């Protein structure tokens, strides 16, 4: 099973232009962001588009935010960044000191406050220049360090070209073990305090309609598979026609060119209109400050994926954007012991997902609403 899957992913990456993808993955920074209105194809120039002269001194910050496909030297960048930071700190600490002479703050607390203040004024992710993105990543990584979340790396990989993700769920194979739920929690740094879960596995009595999830049990606690029952999972379906995206008053959520619906956690105002608009209960809100035990933080993060969220904002499944854009499987698909979960590139005619769609009788939930989920169910 796993062999076959690996093969699929090789295929996936090859079809997506593996060399381009890899070289971009090595570069920490992505291409300049496409503006909201820009067509998906109008991405940044490929490798060598801007910097192939070899003589460019892109490392310096004086570069304009023009399309420079910089291969940032990571350690150097961090050092320089810290230097700038402490320079700024020296100035502001005097100002702060003047205001509150009896301040008992440590240097680290002060630094965190300064970073938070800078974070507060940043713009919507899609409108940020390359430079602004680099800056916010630097701040967020440092903040994570200051907050004891370890040495996290936040990537901003853009959607791979020629990729549209799709998912299929084999109802005959799922046995309700919920390894996927567990893997999702750890992969995506989900809040342990409120036990947030993106995936729900429903247990249904054989013969019961699949459509009626309202009366299905998603909280079973007994040994599975239970006799006379079947199981099916739901999560965000990354609809092609997503009502949640339409309703957001500030465009804090949108669909990426590879079909993944993402949330800019720092732009979200927390009105929860998207939650009311989603027919599948796919979105989660941080009703209190989310927390992950320090040792359990997954440090491989994506800006639009599993990086730290804060209280009062909405989050959701992103098909593990931090994994899938590296050509890996989502955590749920990788962890499934029964092979019930099939994930892949819908645009690749040789992918598993295409095989399922072409050879199985498939259906989607609440198709009558016209949301066009990219998540199909099928049976053997």
């Amino acid at each position, binding site marked *: 099973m796993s062999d076959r899957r690996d093969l699929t992913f090789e295929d996936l990456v090859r079809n997506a232009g593996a060399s381009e993808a890899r070289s971009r993955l090595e570069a920490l920074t992505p291409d300049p962001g496409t503006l909201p209105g820009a067509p998906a194809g109008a991405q940044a120039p490929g490798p060598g588009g801007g910097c192939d002269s070899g003589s460019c001194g892109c490392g310096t910050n004086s570069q304009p935010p023009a399309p420079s496909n910089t291969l940032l030297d990571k350690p150097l960048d961090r050092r320089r960044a810290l230097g700038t930071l402490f320079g700024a700190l020296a100035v502001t600490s005097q100002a702060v000191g003047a205001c509150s002479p009896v301040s008992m703050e440590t240097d680290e607390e002060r630094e965190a406050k300064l970073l938070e203040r800078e974070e507060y004024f940043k713009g*919507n992710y899609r409108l940020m220049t390359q430079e602004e993105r680099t800056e916010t990543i630097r701040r967020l990584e440092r903040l994570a360090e200051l907050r004891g979340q370890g040495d996290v790396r936040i990537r901003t990989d853009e959607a791979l070209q020629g990729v549209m993700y799709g998912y299929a769920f084999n109802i005959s194979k799922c046995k309700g073990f919920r390894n996927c739920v567990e893997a999702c929690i750890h992969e995506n740094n989900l809040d342990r305090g409120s036990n947030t879960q993106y995936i729900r596995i429903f247990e249904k009595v054989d013969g019961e309609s699949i459509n009626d999830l309202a009366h299905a049990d998603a909280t079973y606690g007994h040994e599975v598979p239970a006799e006379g029952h079947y199981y099916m999972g739901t999560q965000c379906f990354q609809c092609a026609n997503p009502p949640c995206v339409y309703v957001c008053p500030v465009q804090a959520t949108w669909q990426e060119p590879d079909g993944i619906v993402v949330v800019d956690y720092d732009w979200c105002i927390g009105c929860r209109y998207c939650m009311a608009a989603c027919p599948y209960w796919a979105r989660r809100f941080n009703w209190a400050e989310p927390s992950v035990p320090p040792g359990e933080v997954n440090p491989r993060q994506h800006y639009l994926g599993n990086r730290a969220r804060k209280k009062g904002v909405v989050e959701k499944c992103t098909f593990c954007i931090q994994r899938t854009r590296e050509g890996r499987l989502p955590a749920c698909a990788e962890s499934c012991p029964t092979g019930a979960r099939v994930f892949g590139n819908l645009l690749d005619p040789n992918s598993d997902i295409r095989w399922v769609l072409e050879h199985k009788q498939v259906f989607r939930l609440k198709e009558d609403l016209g949301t066009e989920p990219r998540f199909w169910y099928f049976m053997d």
Partner: protein
Amino acid sequence: MHLKWFLLSAFRSAVTGGRRYHLWMGLLTLLMLLGAYGYGVQLREGLSVTGMNDHTSWGLYISNFTFLVGMAAAAVMLVLPAYVLEDVDFGKAVLIAEGVAVSALSMCLAFVVVDLGNPFASWHLTPGIGILNFPRSMLAWDVVVLNGYLALNSLIPFYILYSHYTGQKPNKSRYVPFVYLSVFWAVSIHLVTAFLLAGLPARPFWNHGLLGPRFLATAFTAGTAFMILLLWFIDNETEYEIDRGAFKKLAMITTVAAQVNLIMLGSEIFTEFYFPTHHAESARYLFFGLEGYDALVPWIRVALVLNLGATAVLTLHPLRENRYWLLGSCVVLFVAVWIDKGMGLVVPGFLP
């Protein structure tokens, strides 16, 4: 210069009054402080303190917001005849109605702000420095129409009062165009608020064409009922006299609105229950309870009885003409609509 004195006198008249007035204002201040403390707790702990959850992600904040938008919209029922048709009866009442609209709107906006999980990011709504997803998002529409209506209803009375203060006669050609605009605007604020809910195919309880018209009917029922009570109080307790005819006309408006509301309610109940589908589960939960969950059932049934009773009383001419029956039915109607909209609208939409 005049403006400064105008504002100063306004402030002075707002803080002077008898003992009962001060008691009332003190009580309101106390409630506001209590609310501020509660909000402080919510800011610290997060919205979890409200008892909402991922399933029922909107609750009393949003439903009260919806109800108050209706109150604000109802002011138009006085504005329309007073300015446009030059109906003198309403002349004095209209400034009060606009005052009600302004306070209702302030509360609306406050309810929306306290419902935000990340209120410090609300500057993201400002076009220019942020992004307002207009015209795609109905919430963006609501931001526009509510703030616009607030501006209209603040500026028109301000102009009239200020002209009085400086001893000039208000120039009609200056403010009447805005009055016309506010009449259409009033309808729009409540329709847009209804569309905010009706535009969600995910929630069949809201996703029907009657929601907007029904919102208007309930608004003109509860809003004008409230105006009658308020004007009666002002007429009774202060030197500011309200014309008898104004009460008569307001009572008529309330009656017709209540009747129309009942027709629509009946139509909704028929569609939900004649042949109950899956989509009727929200209504079933509301009126009968679903699988043992029936917290809202007594409320909505009481509201239904109150609605029917008060509308019947108002429909009978002799009873409506009687001051005590009229005032009593107004109280009853206001309560009934508040339960209906404030409790029975938002939460069931999220169920099952």
